[in-house]
């Protein structure tokens, strides 16, 4: 009896047996056509680990669903020339397990391991993490620090944007209403690379980060050739700290004043008080883990 009641309730949500408002196309071409036709009236679904929570809690109504999870072309990780290409449907679990990503972008692998739980990592995708554009998205700081580029496509056009130009506000980005993210390109460095990743949260698993930091240093001989420093949950967008990066260039690690850099980090972020931590806490922790990052790379260089 109870069973049939529940079924009836479920049935009320069906608008028609053909499910006109749920699309699960098999090709990218169809995806772009549907996106072009429905624009902001359609919500994209990949791993569903965010959107299904919101939908089930009725946080917002969703008119049309565009489920892109069947597009095989968007699930690959491959080396193309001097870059690694990651399809937006690659899951956090696949990132963790990828030899290519482990080899070249270890901070990204480490960040993927810190996302949610095994149950979330097996479904949630890198493209979802990027397009949800939460300032706390765990993969975002590493992507900024490695200078990833995002490939965007609409029915008629394609463009490539730098990751640090993509995010415009909390859960906001430059994607147009007819575009989708079709790939993440990360350049492979020619130099000696050291990477650091840290996530601060109130628990070890299943936690939205209080703060994340990703730091990449590339050396030619003993001099810093490139620095990538980015943080999450410290500003309205995942933040790359270019000014601090620039000051490290052409110097030896031993010439850097760690405390001074930590102080600059503190002064260049704009965290807020929320459930996960206060502004002061975040500033202090940011400074602390900046020093840890520098010390860890120093140790690795000595022992490596």
């Amino acid at each position, binding site marked *: 009896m109870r*069973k049939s009641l*529940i*079924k009836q309730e*479920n*049935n009320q*949500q*069906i608008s028609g*047996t053909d*499910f006109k*408002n*749920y699309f*699960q196309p098999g090709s990218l071409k169809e995806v772009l056509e549907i996106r072009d036709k429905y624009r902001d009236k359609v919500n994209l*679904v990949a791993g*569903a*680990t965010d959107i*299904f*929570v919101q*939908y*089930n*809690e009725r946080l917002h109504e969703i008119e049309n*669903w565009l*489920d892109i*999870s069947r597009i095989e072309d968007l699930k690959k990780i491959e080396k193309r020339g001097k870059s690694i290409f990651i399809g937006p449907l690659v899951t956090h*679990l696949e990132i963790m397990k990828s030899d290519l990503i482990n080899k070249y972008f270890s901070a990204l692998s480490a960040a993927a391991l810190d996302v*949610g*739980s*095994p*149950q*979330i990592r*097996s*479904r949630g995708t890198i493209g979802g993490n990027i397009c949800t554009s939460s300032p706390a998205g765990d993969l975002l700081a590493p992507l900024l620090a490695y200078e990833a580029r995002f490939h965007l496509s609409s029915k008629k056009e394609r463009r490539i944007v730098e990751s640090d130009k993509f995010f415009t506000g909390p859960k906001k980005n430059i994607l147009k209403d007819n575009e989708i993210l079709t790939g993440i390109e990360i350049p492979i460095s020619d130099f000696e690379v050291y990477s650091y990743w840290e996530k601060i949260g109130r628990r*070890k*698993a*299943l936690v939205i980060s209080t703060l994340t930091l990703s730091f990449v240093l590339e050396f030619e001989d003993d001099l810093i050739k490139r620095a990538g420093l980015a943080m999450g949950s410290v500003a309205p967008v995942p933040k790359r700290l270019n000014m601090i990066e620039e000051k490290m260039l052409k110097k030896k690690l031993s010439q850097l004043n760690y405390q001074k850099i930590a102080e600059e980090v503190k002064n260049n972020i704009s965290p807020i008080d929320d459930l996960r931590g206060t502004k002061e806490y975040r500033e202090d922790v940011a400074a602390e883990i900046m020093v840890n990052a520098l010390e860890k790379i120093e140790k690795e260089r000595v022992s490596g």
Partner: protein
Amino acid sequence: MKISLTVNGQLREVEITPYTRLLDLLREDLGLTGTKEGCGKGECGACTVIMDGELVASCLVPAPQAAGSEILTIEGLGSKENLHPIQESFVEAGAVQCGFCIPGMVLASKKLLDENPHPAEKEIRIGLSGNICRCTGYAKIIDAVMMAAEKMDGQESDQDG
């Protein structure tokens, strides 16, 4: 909208809406109530099942994404008369109190031991990090997984048809 999927080795056809959760499909349509609903947000792990070899929170899987997949629920792992070594170990270690989290805990343990037959304690904690237990404090659950690892040493864990 009709989909077919393999559940515990059997091919099943189910009528769904696009927004049916895999969890509801299993519990309501197939009557497999061993899979539990805790938080409904992917945070507690009570609804854990194994889908195409990976651990998933069935409350976060839209049914259309489960079309064509292979699902293992707790009903597919051993029976009352013939417990899976993991289930046996949970009983022997006293790892079960209220029991609500246990189907998810057992499946997460199975997934862990399939990939890593001799996990260290830290690896067990990571493997079970998506499953919350509000009774036991986890110590006995971890003992149970270690016990199961010993029992299963050298033998296939596949009792899942």
